């Protein structure tokens, strides 16, 4: 078991290493670098050389990669171009803001998704399923920026219930943030819920059709007891992995949602740093977002392993 866990962690680290290589090489290979974009038209002669010198771009690429990677391992992402601030100081409050948004959405989204998924599976092809499934398919397929824009138009502008955009400083505290993020949380958790509810639905349907559930029905186990004791534990296990992949995939959607609501999180930083061509910040963001993806998947893998004794013994024999 321990060896297996270590192996998974090692695989995650290898993935992160490759991500760091990809972003580094990508930035190197694509035309234009930090200095030519920073200086724009004045990028020639002495000014360019001075810039290269200042940013250390005159050192060979592999040496820069090594020193950058060592910095990242020590938790230091170096300096950003535009403000010449330490990237850590730029990232800190943004990471916190995004975490507040994400955890609020996940806390609200997961229970609702479970409930909807189970309801739709148990009343499959009946009225509750048709209504909920239509809704989930709509919110899954429509782009995040459209559902967010529609939410603002309906809830904030037509009904005037909630403020449409978030107007808080980047360094705001959690208690200042919470009342402002109701709409963004609804927007994100709506899409997340839809994805997860679909997964739970198909998983529950699969288990309901299995032999042991049929057996339980024949034996005369009461319906709800059967659902809670036999179906749900077996149905939710395979859903964990898929849910993790979905959360990670939604990171991209969170970027767009943050822009729509003007929310000062990591997502808006992605857009800002790319607009400013602030490549060091972009590299840092790539590593951070990829780490989130790797960590979520790792947690899901470990959860499935812990909850499924069969898988445990199987993997060890291998």
């Amino acid at each position, binding site marked *: 078991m321990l060896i297996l866990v270590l192996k998974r962690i090692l695989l995650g680290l*290898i*993935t*992160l290493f*490759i*991500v760091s290589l*990809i*972003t580094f090489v*990508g*930035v190197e290979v*694509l*035309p*234009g670098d930090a200095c030519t974009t920073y200086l724009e038209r004045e990028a020639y002669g002495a000014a360019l050389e001075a810039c290269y010198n200042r940013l250390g771009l005159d050192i060979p690429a592999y040496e820069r990669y090594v020193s950058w990677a060592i910095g990242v391992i020590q938790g230091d992402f170096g300096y950003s171009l535009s403000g010449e601030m330490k990237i850590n100081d730029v990232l800190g409050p943004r990471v916190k803001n995004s975490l507040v948004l994400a955890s609020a959405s996940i806390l609200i989204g997961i229970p609702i998704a479970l409930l909807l998924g189970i309801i739709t599976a148990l009343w499959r092809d009946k009225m509750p399923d048709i209504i909920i499934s239509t809704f989930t*398919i*709509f919110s899954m*397929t*429509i*782009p*995040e*920026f*459209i559902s967010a*824009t*529609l939410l*603002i*138009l309906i809830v904030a*502008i037509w009904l005037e219930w909630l403020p449409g955009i978030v107007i808080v400083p980047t360094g705001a505290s959690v208690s200042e943030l919470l009342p402002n993020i109701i709409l963004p949380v609804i927007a994100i958790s709506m899409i997340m819920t839809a*994805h997860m509810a*679909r*997964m739970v639905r*198909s*998983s529950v349907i*699969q288990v309901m059709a299995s032999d042991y559930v049929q057996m339980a029905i024949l034996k005369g186990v009461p319906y709800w007891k059967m659902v809670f004791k036999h179906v749900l534990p077996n149905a939710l296990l*395979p859903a964990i*992995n*898929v849910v993790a*992949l*979905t959360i*990670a*995939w939604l*990171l*991209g959607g969170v*970027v*767009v949602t943050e*822009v*729509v609501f003007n929310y000062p999180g990591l997502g808006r930083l*992605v*857009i800002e740093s*790319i*607009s400013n*061509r602030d490549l060091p910040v*972009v590299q840092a*963001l*790539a590593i951070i*977002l*990829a780490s989130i*993806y*790797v960590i979520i*998947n790792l947690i899901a893998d470990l959860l499935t392993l812990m909850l499924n004794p069969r898988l445990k013994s199987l993997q060890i024999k291998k």
Partner: protein
Amino acid sequence: MTLVIKQEKPKSTFSKIVEIISTMASRPSGLIGLIILVFHVTLAITSPLYAPHDYKAIDPSLMLQAPSSEYWFGTDSLGRDVFTRTILGGRTALTVTFFGSLIALLWGGALGIFCGLVGGKIDDVVMRIIDAFLSIPWILAMLLIVSLLGTSTIVLIPALGFFYGKGIVRVARAATHDVIAKDFIVSARARGHGNFSIIWNEILPNVRDAIMVEGAMRWSWMLLGFSSLSFLGFGVSPPTPDWGLMISNARGLMSFAYWAVLAPIFGLSSLIIGINLTADAFAKALGIDRSTKAPV
């Protein structure tokens, strides 16, 4: 008495396509999807012929007019006709994502089959790299490419094609793995067929369906990604009409002029729903179950 053995004629490609489409249309959701898709494709091809106004004619005196008989969907903040821009707004998106999906399908399918076939070390390394690419959020990678290389169609098509192809690699590889151990491959090897012949004659016909269904799904995600890029200001450049861009421009003024934002929202949503329903019906017609897959 003679024994007549009836041999079924091998179906032509055309009759197979007709059969698949009629299976797709036999379900209400598939029929709706096909109708929407055909409608949008026809609109994209023919709309320049009957667009009532000039899509880039700016007229400050006509700013933010409400819908009228002259301007069916009203006008936007620069006085341009929203109806004209809406019916033209899907052309770039459809073209870019269609060719992007084709590229994704080709390279993803080829690499996936190759990895599934060779296996071993090469397969391990390639799959690690694919996993790493999958763990970079698509939006970050796309934005990086687009911001460094520009937003012309020539850049967008291969960039999108590359980025949405990595998921197809996985599907193609898994499908190849499923057939590779089957008897007919073993017997083809025993007959002395080369790798290329085995791929072309034995593997491809068996994995084609799975890859094509995946490609159809990618199309709708690519459309979503492309419009998100436009929305963020990194896609189509103005004044070219594009739904994502139109939504982003009209968003600030939607408390006065909701029509300028609702028209492109309707256009884009209906197209994405149409493609999704069609892809779903396509998968069902080919007997492929995608319901438990994560959207990676």
